[in-house]
């Protein structure tokens, strides 16, 4: 690249000298033009010859060679050199731009860990992450990347997850926590048991995804390559006709004049500006999104996302945390603490999610000696003897069955009613919690052109409606089995307009068929969930629903840039073609139409990478 730059500089100096000398020293002037031409363009000429031998006629080297040689032949030396000089400048710039974007992908790849410190006996050995087995114990020092997914056994530290999630606030891990590969250990020393092989670890999955993104081409990319395939031959044929026919049929038309116009055509006929600018925009968009912790599996999905009109959410785990917590304790005749304690003891041996949340809410230790007898009554609850007293804890059916008068609660969620010795003592409400940014997410979506927000849930009507009402979601379907969700999606497909697209957002747990059926499937909380990464088209690495708005904004911006590039590149080329065909535009304008447009389109597509303010 440096060599090319020097050739351009030397060529440019010789070229300007020749222009300054002008026609005064005819011989010297000609020699300087020729010399700079050869210095700047010899490789293009050589390549053109090689390509012709291989049977490739319409490639850019050939077109530029013919155009510049032609210009020399009709005595337009400056134009001949200029074509080659500016073509080379354009190429230089283009390869710089391409390298720049290749580097930005390389920086995304920077999360690849180079080694793992494996504990063997009493010593630590540095090995390739690929060689580490499940169950091996690894040590991660401050500043090192987490090489494989694992479980923290000893130590605590702050972990930088920004490479995976785009989240800049570090997270604290302590013994017992899950640790994902690709994060960076900021300060502490931690000992970790490996739970996944390298190939199955999060970092490998993400690298694979980023590298293979954009292998699915968007419609605009397909359009532009198809356009280029016809564009070049057609323009070349017109150029040939332009050189031959008018001089023969129009009185007084000169060959030289029309050949000049034809040569301008050849310069403009290069398809490169078009072909490079559109994929570069999409690539920028995909790269920008991944900086925000949003993985997009291909340019086509950005395109669909930008046209989305209906967004369907799964409730649990997507809009809500998917973790059931005690929300409200209503005690009758005893204190709230006592009620919680009694319930925690009664539920001690149960592993039902509801029991677990009650036990979590009760912070104290449980002395199992106080529990003498526990019976689970399936579908109802538990009956236990604690401190010699009979405790009943369960749903309303249990209370009815035991004929205990109680006060029914009409709240969203699951209510556990508790009775001691046949007397009702109160109820505990357990419900899923709405994520802190869900409301912001729904508002943001409405502001960015989404006309229809829908929520699907397997929960009962009360729970579903309450969440939907709080978030301002326009439509809710409740009591759905996983299979019903696909049917509902089909119904929604019928309702939406033909052009608008439908996106589904889920957490990847038992909604894979729906993710696949939607125009674009978005999985939330992709971190650590293989199912989600595989089934979805777009993966949001942390579990913030507001990232969906960000993704749509990025998609719209990217698509806008791609369209601008298409219109701009084709527009300028067509205008210059018409003008030079009519004899109004010089070859200089043609060179600009080729090189200038390429450079501007590339610069424009760089904007897609910038996602800071979105």
């Amino acid at each position: 690249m440096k060599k090319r730059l020097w050739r351009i500089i030397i060529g440019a100096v010789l070229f300007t000298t020749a222009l300054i000398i002008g026609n005064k020293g005819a011989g010297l002037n000609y020699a300087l033009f020729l010399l700079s031409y050869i210095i700047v363009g010899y490789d293009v000429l050589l390549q053109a010859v090689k390509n012709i031998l291989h049977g490739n006629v319409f490639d850019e080297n050939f077109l530029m060679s013919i155009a510049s040689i032609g210009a020399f032949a009709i005595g337009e030396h400056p134009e001949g050199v200029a074509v080659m000089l500016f073509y080379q400048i354009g190429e230089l710039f283009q390869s710089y731009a391409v390298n720049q974007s290749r580097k930005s992908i390389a920086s995304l790849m920077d999360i690849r860990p180079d080694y793992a410190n494996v504990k063997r006996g009493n010593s630590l050995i540095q090995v390739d992450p690929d060689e580490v087995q499940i169950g091996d114990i690894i040590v991660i020092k401050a500043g090192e990347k987490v090489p494989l997914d694992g479980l923290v056994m000893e130590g605590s530290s702050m972990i930088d997850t920004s490479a995976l999630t785009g989240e800049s606030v570090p997270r604290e891990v302590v013994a017992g926590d899950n640790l994902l590969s690709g994060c960076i250990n900021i300060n502490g020393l931690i000992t970790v048991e490996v739970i996944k092989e390298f190939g199955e670890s999060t970092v490998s999955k993400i690298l694979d995804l980023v590298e293979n993104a954009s292998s699915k081409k968007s419609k605009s990319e397909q359009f532009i390559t198809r356009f280029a395939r016809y564009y070049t031959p057609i323009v070349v044929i017109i150029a040939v006709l332009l050189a031959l026919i008018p001089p023969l049929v129009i009185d007084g038309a000169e060959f030289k004049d029309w050949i000049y116009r034809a040569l301008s055509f050849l310069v403009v006929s290069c398809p490169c500006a078009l072909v490079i600018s559109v994929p570069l925009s999409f690539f920028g968009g995909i790269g920008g999104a991944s900086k925000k912790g949003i993985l997009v599996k291909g340019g086509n999905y950005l395109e669909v996302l930008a046209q989305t009109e209906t967004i369907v959410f799964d409730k649990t785990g997507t809009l809500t945390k998917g973790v059931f917590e005690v929300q409200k304790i209503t005690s009758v005749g005893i204190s709230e603490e006592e009620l919680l304690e009694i319930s925690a003891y009664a539920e001690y041996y149960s592993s039902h999610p509801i029991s677990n949340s009650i036990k979590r809410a009760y912070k104290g230790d449980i002395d199992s000696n106080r529990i003498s007898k526990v019976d689970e009554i399936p579908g109802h609850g538990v009956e236990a003897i604690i401190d010699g007293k009979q405790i009943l804890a369960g749903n309303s059916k249990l209370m009815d069955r035991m004929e205990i008068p109680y006060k029914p609660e009409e709240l969203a969620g699951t209510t556990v009613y508790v009775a001691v010795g046949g007397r009702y003592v109160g109820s505990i409400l357990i419900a899923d919690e709405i994520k802190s940014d869900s409301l912001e997410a729904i508002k943001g979506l409405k502001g960015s052109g989404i006309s229809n927000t829908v929520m699907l849930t397997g929960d009962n009507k009360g729970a579903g409606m309450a969440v939907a009402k709080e978030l301002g979601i326009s439509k809710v379907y409740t009591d759905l089995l996983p299979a019903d969700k696909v049917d509902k999606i089909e119904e929604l497909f019928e309702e939406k307009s033909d052009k608008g697209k439908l996106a589904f957002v889920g957490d990847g747990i038992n909604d894979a068929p729906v993710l696949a059926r939607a125009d674009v499937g978005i999985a939330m909380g992709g971190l650590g969930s293989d199912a989600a990464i595989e089934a979805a088209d777009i993966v949001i690495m942390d579990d913030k629903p507001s990232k969906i708005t960000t993704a749509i904004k990025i998609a719209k911006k990217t698509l806008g840039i791609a369209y601008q590039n298409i219109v701009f590149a084709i527009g300028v080329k067509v205008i210059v073609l018409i003008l030079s065909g009519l004899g109004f535009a010089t070859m200089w304008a043609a060179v600009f139409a080729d090189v200038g447009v390429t450079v501007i389109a590339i610069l424009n597509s760089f904007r897609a990478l910038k996602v800071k303010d979105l």
Partner: protein
Amino acid sequence: MVVNMKKVFRLEGLGCANCAAKMEMKIGELDGVDSVSVNFITTKLVIEAEDDKMDSIIKSAEKIIRKIEPDTKLKKA
């Protein structure tokens, strides 16, 4: 039964976007190729083709690539 397999290559020295498009089209026309994608920016070539024809497809692909851009080399990724 026809078994499809996927191979990934790196195209070293891939310098022009239009050439990448041409390679993609030409390789896609080969017998037995199910899908092919050349990513100009990551310089990756992904070929999905019938298992038993893969070897000959790779050879033909190498020829196509050399013809379109002589400086580009096909490397195993």
